[in-house]
């Protein structure tokens, strides 16, 4: 029944959209804290009538800590201007693209969106994405009216910040704010931002493996942020010094990116956790997602020798077989699939396929009870409050 409903919906979605362009846009590099050229690339397809135009509009201004008595953890913008490029095509029915390069200088904050128009004048527009670039803000001037003073200040640095105006039903609570901080073992901040790009682009956009299907499908639920130095991870010991310690107050979860080899570790948390990811691993993107399973979604390890404890909704690891069976039944999963994790005395629902909280393979995904937990997370976000 569910399969028929899904197939029917898919057919409806596809036929209902016939003639409407498909459009996506992404900036490259995702984040760099130095002067550079940032290129926004919009891609569009409409196979019936063809694409006649892509328009990219970018608002570029100076990143500020917002002008009020108290500086903000989340940036504002001043002295902004709109740049736009229009690419015209003769109704091309295969994918076309349009590129808008921007010169990124210190403390830039860019918001962009792209609109594609078909030859039959139907349009589609991407959501607004905001990102920072150039040397970051490090100081703020507080204006008390008759007296001013300055103090050190850093904001969270948006990498992919979804900044469509909130509606009556969707606000920022409907996003998962994932922050990245550099470990001291990064050679420099550029190495950190390069590694961040190497992880975030495949995980949310370009990878073609099964493990990243969930994040690529639901990428619009995530805001990605970079933060300043100050974090230090080593095994499960994590410390945060200023300014990173303050800036991470804007994050739902914090990934400390490091290059030295040590056993990665993450808190089992929902909304405020942290973990580490070694960026030099060949499967670092998978490792990041696995660790995020712990520190963003409260999932436990489902392998023998891991952290077999869960606070997800529903739990993906249980202390008794009966509890696993009960939860499985409640979540429309075969209770007969409940299996002990080694001889740990903890239990999970195992359908035999590779799952991301157990199997370190790129063909894994979030399955059975961890899959249900992530579906619940999506519903919570879509309903306006991820946490």
């Amino acid at each position, binding site marked *: 029944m569910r399969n028929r409903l899904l197939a029917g919906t898919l057919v409806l979605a596809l036929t209902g959209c016939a003639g409407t362009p498909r459009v996506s846009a992404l900036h490259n590099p995702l984040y760099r804290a130095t002067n550079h050229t940032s290129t926004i690339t919009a891609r569009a397809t409409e196979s019936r009538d063809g694409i006649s135009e892509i328009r990219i509009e970018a608002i570029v201004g100076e990143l500020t800590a917002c002008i009020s008595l108290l500086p903000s953890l*989340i940036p504002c913008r001043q002295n902004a201007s709109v740049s736009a490029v229009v690419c015209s095509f003769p109704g091309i029915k295969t994918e076309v693209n349009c590129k808008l390069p921007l010169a990124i200088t210190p403390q830039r904050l860019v918001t962009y969106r792209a609109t594609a128009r078909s030859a039959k004048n139907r349009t589609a527009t991407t959501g607004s994405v905001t990102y920072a670039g150039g040397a970051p803000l490090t100081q703020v001037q507080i204006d008390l009216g008759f007296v001013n003073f300055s103090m050190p200040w850093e904001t969270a640095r948006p990498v992919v910040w979804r900044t469509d105006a909130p509606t009556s039903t969707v606000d920022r609570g409907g996003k998962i704010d994932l922050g990245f901080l550099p470990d001291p073992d990064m050679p420099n901040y550029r190495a950190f931002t390069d590694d961040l790009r190497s992880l975030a682009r495949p995980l949310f956009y370009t990878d073609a493996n099964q493990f990243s299907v969930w994040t690529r*499908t639901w990428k619009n639920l995530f805001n990605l942020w970079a933060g300043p130095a100050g974090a230090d991870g080593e095994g*499960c010991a994590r410390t945060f010094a200023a300014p990173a310690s303050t800036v991470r107050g804007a994050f739902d979860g914090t990934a400390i990116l490091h290059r030295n080899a040590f056993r990665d570790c993450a808190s089992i948390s929902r909304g405020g956790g942290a973990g580490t990811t070694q960026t030099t691993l060949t499967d670092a993107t998978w490792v990041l997602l696995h660790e995020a399973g712990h520190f963003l979604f409260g999932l436990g390890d489902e392998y023998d020798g891991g952290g077999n404890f869960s606070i997800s909704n529903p739990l993906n690891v249980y202390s008794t077989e009966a509890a696993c069976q009960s939860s499985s039944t409640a979540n429309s999963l075969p209770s007969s699939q409940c299996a002990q994790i080694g001889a740990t005395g903890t239990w999970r629902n195992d359908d035999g396929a590779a799952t991301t909280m157990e199997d370190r393979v790129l063909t894994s995904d979030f399955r059975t009870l961890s899959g249900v937990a992530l579906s619940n997370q999506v519903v919570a976000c879509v309903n306006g409050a991820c946490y």
Partner: protein
Amino acid sequence: MRFLVFAALWSSVFMVARVSAQTAEPEEEETRPAASDGGKVEVLPSRPIEQDADQLNELVAAETVDGLVLVVTIDRASVTLDSAVPARVPRRLTGPDRKIAGDVVRTTGFVNNEEIASTVTPDNVVNASEGGGLVRTERRQITIVLAAERPIESVAIDAPATGAIARLDVRAAYAEYCKADPTGKWCPKAR
């Protein structure tokens, strides 16, 4: 069952977007606007935006509130204040009714023993060490975000996971504001 069907519906809608998202972005940096497939490129003149008309600033104003960012180290039963910084903070991170689970740190802000703010924050005691099993980090650092429209004088921290309870004086967080304007809104001494 309902959420599975709901999620499946959403998945199907997003499937089209997912396919296009898999297209790899180029690694090289462009220096001039460009169009593929021989398309024509028109660059429109840049035009300024008034600060008040910048929707990003409206968004941030709507989603942040005045508050205090606390960083504390909880070491078993002891609590140490690492930093306290007045700031505009994300509104959604400040409430006592956040949907978090597991061990939590409850924080309450006071002015003259009057409770003016409270929040709940995950207490990252339980960790999954890859290949190492569960690790309890009884010494951990927690960042706490409180909403407050006036200076908080003290905070009560309660971390049941390790039996930590403390009352911390945070008036020093506003020292720069007091130094600049001893009678201002953000100087506790002025109250």
